[in-house]
């Protein structure tokens, strides 16, 4: 594994006892600000179907950036959310990336002292878990190492948001807080093809979206004290079918 950057390390230090997405968003924003040396951050939910909603902004300036984008319906964060590709705009005053959203860039320069914005989509496949906006008051981009760190950290943050979203309610128990189930979904497990394939199969079995299908698989793993990857393999091998699993499924609702 490549050496972890400061932002990724800061995220990994977040304890697993968070159960509220606003609190998790606050901790994630803090980790990015500290780890990447940016001036502020905001994390918003931003999808086509769900109302736009800022979970956390580190300061008033970060809040203004979010509101401007929502109002103008353009900007780094909107682009990152719709394309799924991170945006790094090192200088809003000098064309480049910012030329794609001239109205947003002009409004930011007029209303704030922000000069650089970076937007990172937090996603798991097609599941959009939020967009993280970072800003700097100086027109300075992220270096190669910082960029790599930002992407690894965005991936880690997305898995944290996904963990929270797919945690079965009944399992936020002292056992979780004690660390017996105490980990965030890890890239090394969550990126396995079997997990994705099993998710797709359960989506078809129960007519669910990807996050809810993963929630069922995780619930089954927790309830049966098995590893996520083992349960996923059973689903892919067709040894486990969730259409027969009403009892387990009910526990997760």
């Amino acid at each position, binding site marked *: 594994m490549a050496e972890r950057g400061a932002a990724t390390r800061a995220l990994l230090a977040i304890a697993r006892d968070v159960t509220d997405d606003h609190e998790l968003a606050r901790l994630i924003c803090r980790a990015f600000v500290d780890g990447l040396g940016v001036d502020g951050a905001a994390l918003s939910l931003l999808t086509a179907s769900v109302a736009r909603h800022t979970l956390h902004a580190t300061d008033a300036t970060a809040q203004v950036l979010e509101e401007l984008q929502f109002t103008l319906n353009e900007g780094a964060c909107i682009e990152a959310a719709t394309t799924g*590709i991170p945006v790094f705009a090192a200088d809003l005053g000098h064309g480049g990336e910012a030329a794609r959203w001239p109205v947003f860039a002009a409004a930011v320069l007029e209303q704030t002292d922000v000069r650089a914005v970076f937007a990172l989509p937090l996603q798991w496949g*097609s599941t959009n878990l939020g967009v993280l906006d970072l800003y700097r008051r100086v027109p300075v981009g992220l270096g190669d190492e910082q960029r790599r760190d930002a992407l690894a950290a965005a991936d880690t943050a997305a898995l944290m948001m996904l963990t929270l979203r797919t945690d079965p309610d009944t399992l936020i128990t002292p056992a979780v807080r004690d660390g017996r189930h105490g980990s965030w979904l890890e890239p090394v497990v969550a*990126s396995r*093809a079997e997990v994705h394939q099993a998710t797709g199969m359960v989506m078809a079995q129960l007519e669910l979206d990807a996050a809810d299908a993963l929630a069922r698989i995780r619930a089954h793993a927790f309830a049966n004290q098995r590893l996520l990857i083992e349960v996923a393999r059973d689903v892919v091998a067709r040894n486990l079918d969730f259409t027969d699993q009403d009892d387990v499924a009910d526990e997760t609702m």
Partner: protein
Amino acid sequence: MNQPSGSREQLLARAFVSLADTLVDDYDVIELLTRLVDYSVGLLAADAGGIMLADPHGLLQVVATSNENARLIELMQLQNDQGPCLDCFHGGAPVNVADLVEAADQWPRFVAAAMHRPVFRAVHALPLRLRGQAIGALNLWHHQPNSMPAQDLAIGQALADVATIAIMQERAIRRGEVLNEQLQAALTSRVIIEQAKGLLAQHARLSMDQAFESMRRYARSHNQRLADVARGLTERALHPDAIVTP
């Protein structure tokens, strides 16, 4: 892939033209890499092939394989955290194994796992490199012990270089940046494609290979990107019956 007729030079030329043809503005990187694996297998008389890419954590992910067996043996290396393809990536240099049985000392856990149900005996791993940095590997597998001639390895490396260009995009290379964002986009596509494979496999009782092939066929015949077809399935904008009904 069916092996087209013609001399190898013709086949090679055809492969590059077809790949270049795919490198248009809005190409689908997973489809291109899958096609590239198929060409490499056909041109270099391998039995199977695969491409692995490094994610931002530095973990390798299998993004394209010519069949399920190739995917499984690539996963075996990742699970055991050792193997020729990992060494190729970490060292940024080709790793050629003429007979896996004789390489047990080098990668004991991987070779033991691979020989448990022996499918492949030889592998040639070629790095995907950009300005000295490895971003992944192209791996060619043989059922029987095999040592590929230097000329074949050179062709394999050329195909691996095309894969690198496909991922990084000409635009990014011209700007002189190694764009991890492009890698990220390819890896995200892969997650969606795996989910869509599962959805389709469940719906129509297909194997994962068959599900993948149906999606590719549908994407080609409807002139759509593979990733968009997969996204359509996972977001329920596209009904699985549309894919599997001929």
